[in-house]
């Protein structure tokens, strides 16, 4: 993937390869925190932060520690440890900066640790053999893509409250259907640029 401009990867990971709506990673918090635009924005920003930092850190860990020592098979554990620590750090920072956001995010802040989108990005970065710059921009782009998706979802759900929905579909049911429709809409972007 040497040839690809990092900026192409950045935009591609926001739109054509949206981590959430194309790869369907990170659904758990996407469905449960998308009830309010404000909290979605907070969680979205947290995910952007964690993704950018972890892709950089994991790049270093992978190419400067795991690969030279021939222990690439430990990458899952190593990546998760890095992600967990970054999330802990983020938790402290958010508690210090904005208590409101801290309370609103609640359990979903520590749960970013097990948000599969984060691990997914680190693994994709290794599989696709990105360079350091590419990896960081891929991480940031994926984060922004995730944030975009959850914000769109929150906006739609805010309107859903006033609609008549069949009782059986209320809550997660209709949310899943909507994310399916949103995913189809995102396929429309795929003509712009293609990355794998």
């Amino acid at each position, binding site marked *: 993937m040497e040839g690809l401009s990092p900026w192409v990867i950045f935009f591609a990971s926001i739109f054509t390869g949206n981590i959430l709506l194309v790869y369907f990673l990170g659904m758990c918090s996407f469905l449960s925190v998308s009830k309010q635009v404000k909290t979605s924005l907070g969680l979205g920003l947290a995910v952007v932060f964690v993704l950018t930092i972890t892709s950089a850190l994991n790049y270093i860990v992978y190419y400067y520690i795991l690969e030279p020592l021939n*222990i690439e098979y430990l990458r899952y554990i190593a990546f998760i440890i890095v992600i967990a620590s970054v999330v802990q750090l983020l938790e*402290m920072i958010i508690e210090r900066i904005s208590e*409101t956001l801290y309370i609103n995010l609640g359990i979903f802040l520590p749960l970013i640790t097990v948000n599969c989108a984060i691990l997914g990005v680190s693994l994709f970065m290794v599989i696709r053999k990105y360079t350091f710059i590419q990896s960081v921009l891929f991480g940031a782009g994926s984060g922004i893509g995730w944030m975009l998706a959850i914000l769109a979802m929150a906006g739609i759900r805010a309107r859903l409250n006033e609609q008549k929905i069949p009782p059986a579909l209320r809550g997660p049911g209709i949310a899943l259907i909507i994310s399916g429709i949103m995913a189809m809409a995102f396929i429309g972007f795929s003509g712009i640029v293609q990355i794998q």
Partner: protein
Amino acid sequence: MITKILIATLSMAGISGLLAIILVIAERYLANYGECKITINNQKDLIVKGGSTLLSTLNSQKIFLPSACGGRGTCAYCKCKVIDGVGPLLPTEEPLLNKQEIENQIRLACQVKVKQDMLIEIPEELFNIKEFETRVTLIQDLTHDIKLVRLQLIEPYEIFFKAGQYVQLITAPYAGVKESVSRAYSVASASHEHDHVDLMIRLVPEGICTTWVHNYLNENERVKIIGPMGDFYLRDGEGEIIMVAGGSGMAPIVSLLEKISKEDIERKVTYFFGAVRKKDLFYIDEMRNLENEIGNFTFIPALSAPEPEDNWDGETGLITEPLDRYLSRSDNATSQAYLCGSPGMINACINVFVKHGITRDRIFNDPFA
């Protein structure tokens, strides 16, 4: 093979160790708020350790804001004005504050955390609230379910309160109850007696504190109280004082009557006390004595369902009935009403008072309702 395992283990341990160190350092700097200065009413400075809630920080400095729910953010008693040094309104506070309070920078002390120097305002009389170490000198049955508890003050040895105010009694852990709770009880003793307080405590079905008092507390034990609190006290005025109480609501009324007697307040006083049967009546002799001591005082007990063996010849019916009859005969233009008892009784009596032209601003009731 062994080296391979060793390298793998060591490198993973190294990564984890490094990250752990970073986290510990971050915790040291991010989660540590150091010493903060809380300025109260622009006159008193407290140097405290940051990081805990304002309510518990103030408590540790022996300043007691009222709190009934123990910091759960449900009772909204611990409201105080925070002028500076606090973040935006928290979602846990929002439902308990109205628009006007939010504009006036009123916050819930149990939710707000001390993270920097703060500028707060609290009512002056809260400085008077202290924690008292006391000894139980008397536990006496007043009725089958109400006990009188006398607490002799040890440290501080004197209490200054307005007749009608209440204190919070702090329970000791007992049986399966592992933690202390605090509950509010009106003081029944006279406000000119500074060395002890009397409480009248009625057994609440499955109540945490009342079960403790009735079944576990013994004479000579030490208990803590916090007080005095509350704005139920005798107001200035010329007109008649009409008091209504039921059950342990007798307590603050006794204190008010003692004050009226001691200070020779020359106002007409009428006191209605409601009970179901004769065995729910108490303090009759004390009331008859007070009738002699206070110039113009009438005590009217009423039973709603006297037993045949009670041989009751006084007023009968719900307390609202004799009250209604009395008010329709008297001049209520300047009368004041003082109520204490179960919320149901208070609500019913307020309706009767309002019906007879005693407006809400002349009706006072204890704050636990």
